[in-house]
């Protein structure tokens, strides 16, 4: 990636975004997300409810994992915004899991407002992909 002096990024199709290793998932983190999102489904916070649902322990909200995938574009928000964001949830995330998020530039389209970049993004733990999807990021023209 090349950037100009004011921090406006410039990507080429095929570029990789730097992979970020996130701090391990904690129960307190899940409780915070439950409160902030209003999703109080107890399989995300209470062991007994998770066990009753046949799970070995509480699992992270899919929407939390999705939001963490979106962090890869967070540094560039002064210059554009997320126009589209899609996630498929393919694996479960448990307390203690350490996720890695990253992506690559998959497409570029000129729009009236600027450039619309499409990124393929993922969240992985070890070899397992727990979520994957795409972010459309509109980078405003100069």
């Amino acid at each position, binding site marked *: 990636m090349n950037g100009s002096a004011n921090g406006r990024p410039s990507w080429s199709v095929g570029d990789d975004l730097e992979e970020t290793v996130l701090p391990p998932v904690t129960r307190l983190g899940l409780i915070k997300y439950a409160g902030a999102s209003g999703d109080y489904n107890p399989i995300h916070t209470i062991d007994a409810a998770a066990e009753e649902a046949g799970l070995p322990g509480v699992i992270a909200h899919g929407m939390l994992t999705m*939001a963490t995938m979106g962090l890869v574009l967070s540094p560039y928000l002064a210059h554009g915004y997320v126009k589209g964001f*899609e996630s498929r949830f393919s694996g479960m995330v448990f307390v203690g899991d350490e996720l890695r998020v990253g992506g690559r530039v998959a497409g570029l389209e000129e729009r009236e407002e600027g450039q619309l970049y499409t990124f393929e993004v993922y969240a992985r733990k070890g070899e397992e992909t727990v979520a994957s999807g795409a972010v459309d990021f509109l980078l405003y023209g100069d």
Partner: protein
Amino acid sequence: MLYEEFVGCRSEGVGNLVEKGAVRKFAEAIGDPSPLYTDERAARESRHGGLIAPPTFPRTFDYGAVPGLELPPAGLIHGSHRIDYERPLFVGEGVLCRVELEKSYDKEGRRGLLGFLLFERTGETLSGERIFTTKDTVVVTEAVRKVIEG
């Protein structure tokens, strides 16, 4: 198909406010340090001209309920989520939100008959201008289907 009689039905609009404190808490909970969500000055000096909300923040809104549609309280699986914006969502603005059951279909999977429910949620300005559209896939396992069908 599950809830077939509710396909195409939608909730009455519910008014929501993009609250500054709620956005700050949400950004903290997802670990997003962007100043565009919380720092008024940085936001004002950016292209946006004011504070914006994180892309998945609309999940926190109240969309109302499709009249008569009662989903089981447990066991549903969130398969996918998509959100499309016409423009950024700004802190301090009012949003009129609705949910519609767009589609319902069944598919035979390795673990039995699965039901798929597609929900569309929309957010508009109070004057009716679209801000965002979301699509969610909810998966109903065979065990949960038995609960629904009694």
